């Protein structure tokens, strides 16, 4: 027996190995912010297969990449978009139109209700949103039932239970305490519903720093902690750095050509940014210090 508290810091490579073929993972953040991209790139490098990937309520291009790289068998999302870069994620669109991945049609309220059901130990949660829409026609696992109190039609969303949640925060300690310096989005509920939480942080700070700002701790007791500076790149990490618009435009152009049948640029993208850099730090070198500092300045200077 030891009285020493367990430190949970692992490498990107160790953390990504937690995710095995066929698992269900959920990716935190929202749209173009706060994604555990260092882990996602490593999952792709590992050649992990047949994942069920649950996207954030509004899913961004991080899941598009997980689809385009062939890791995904089922995608659970209510919306997958590149915002002002492209209305529909190109790899998502290609895969769903070609039948290469299975889409678990969903609503934002349905996602949160399904996660809440798991978190509080229920088989399903009732929601009203979706009644009168095509949701239940497109997803037979979501069922309409008559509420026993007022007799109104409601929807039963089955409990959603991810094996692993990938949550990105701006700072964390080695014990699995994470603090968001910006929006929390759906990250807390995702963590509460998942068996295992992999917490990536732009910075690892001492437990004393966490305690000094204890009210800011949003994720508690994650199973694994990974230090990933600029770890959400090319997406934003709220409070630290902005999304890399130039890079996202490059991704979208390559992925859109891939959707239309010419995969040359998409393969080049994967080689350059995913397969070739041996480590996350090497990836950051490919992006370049000047670019990373510029992305940091977007937030540092916007209030002046």
């Amino acid at each position, binding site marked *: 027996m030891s009285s020493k508290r367990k430190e949970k810091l692992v490498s990107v490579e160790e953390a990504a190995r937690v995710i095995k073929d066929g698992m269900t993972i959920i990716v935190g953040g*929202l*749209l*173009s*912010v706060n994604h555990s991209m260092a882990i996602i790139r490593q999952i792709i490098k590992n050649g992990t297969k047949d994942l069920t990937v649950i996207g954030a*309520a*509004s899913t961004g291009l991080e899941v598009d990449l997980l689809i385009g790289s062939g890791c995904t068998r089922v995608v659970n*999302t*209510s*919306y*997958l*978009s590149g*915002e*002002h870069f492209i*209305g*529909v*994620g190109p790899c*998502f*669109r290609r895969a*769903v*139109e*070609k*039948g290469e991945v*299975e*889409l678990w*049609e*969903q*609503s*934002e*309220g*349905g996602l*949160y209700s399904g996660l809440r059901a798991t978190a509080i130990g229920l088989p399903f949660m009732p*929601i*009203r*949103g*979706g*009644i*009168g*829409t*095509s*949701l239940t*026609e*497109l997803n037979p696992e979501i069922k309409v039932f008559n509420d026993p109190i*007022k007799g*109104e*039609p409601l929807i039963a969303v089955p409990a959603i239970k991810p094996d692993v949640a990938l949550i990105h925060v701006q700072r964390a300690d080695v014990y699995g305490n994470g603090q968001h310096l*910006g*929006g*929390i*989005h*759906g990250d*807390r*509920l995702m963590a509460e519903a998942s068996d295992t939480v992999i917490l990536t942080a732009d910075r690892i700070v001492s437990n004393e720093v966490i305690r000094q700002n204890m009210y800011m701790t949003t994720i508690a007791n994650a199973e694994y902690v990974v230090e990933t500076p600029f770890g959400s790149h090319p997406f*934003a990490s*709220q*409070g630290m750095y*902005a999304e890399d618009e130039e890079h996202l435009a490059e991704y979208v152009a390559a992925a859109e050509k891939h959707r239309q049948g010419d995969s040359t640029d998409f393969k080049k993208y994967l080689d350059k940014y995913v397969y070739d850099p041996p480590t996350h730090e090497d990836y950051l070198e490919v992006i370049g210090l000047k670019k990373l500092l510029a992305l940091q300045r*977007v*937030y540092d200077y*916007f*209030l002046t």
Partner: protein
Amino acid sequence: MTQHTGDFSEKEMMAVFFTRDMKDGEIVCSGANTEICFASCFLAQKMHAPNLILTLGANCFYCNVSDRDCTLYPSSGDYRNIQWAESRYQHPDIFNFLPRADHWFVGGNEVDKYGNTNMMGVGYDPVTRRWKFRGPGGVGIIDVSALVKDNYVFVMRHDRRTLVDKVEYISAVGFIDGPGARERLGLLGNGPRYIATPKAVFDFHPETKRARLFKLMPGVSLDWVVKNTGFEIVMPGGKVGEVEPPTLEEITILRSIDKLGLCRK
């Protein structure tokens, strides 16, 4: 006398139209990538509705800019919008206040004569589980359209593929298949309030729940709208007027907000 300007874009006109409809003290919500929506709310806060609260769905902020200079950013998810925020929520909590929200902006790849919209796609084959065209998905609007007081439906294209007689799939409920449908299903709220396009605005007949031509955007002909709308055009009294063009005051304030010119692109 009010001065008007002839120099405005379609997006600016749509934003001004929605601004004029908003009342002081209302709660208005906008999803992602919707510059018209938050431009119109910021404009309302600076014109006649300083107590209006804009909820930015993608950033989980409550925003008010009535007393300050502000800039419109390309996405409502842009973190720089924190400058206009005075409160925040966790994203799942958005479902805790939907029944008390006044208006929510609802987009769609297709919208039909009952104000139902479709962001899911067209041509789904349940056997192969393949889509002919897949849209982004129904997002939180699936929930919103069943719960908020009313919806501002807006589309950025006005053609027969966008304004259709019947959407193939419903991602956001309007009046579904006509009178009594929302009530029968126990949905909250009043359903869609307007459909705005770059060329025209539709409202809904109180009894039949059918979209009817409410106003043409300035300079657009009735003939053009009839030709380019996929559902039958009906007009109260057989006549239709034009939306009042933006006033100089409206356009001046709007452009002081839209410093990056997003509504002019």
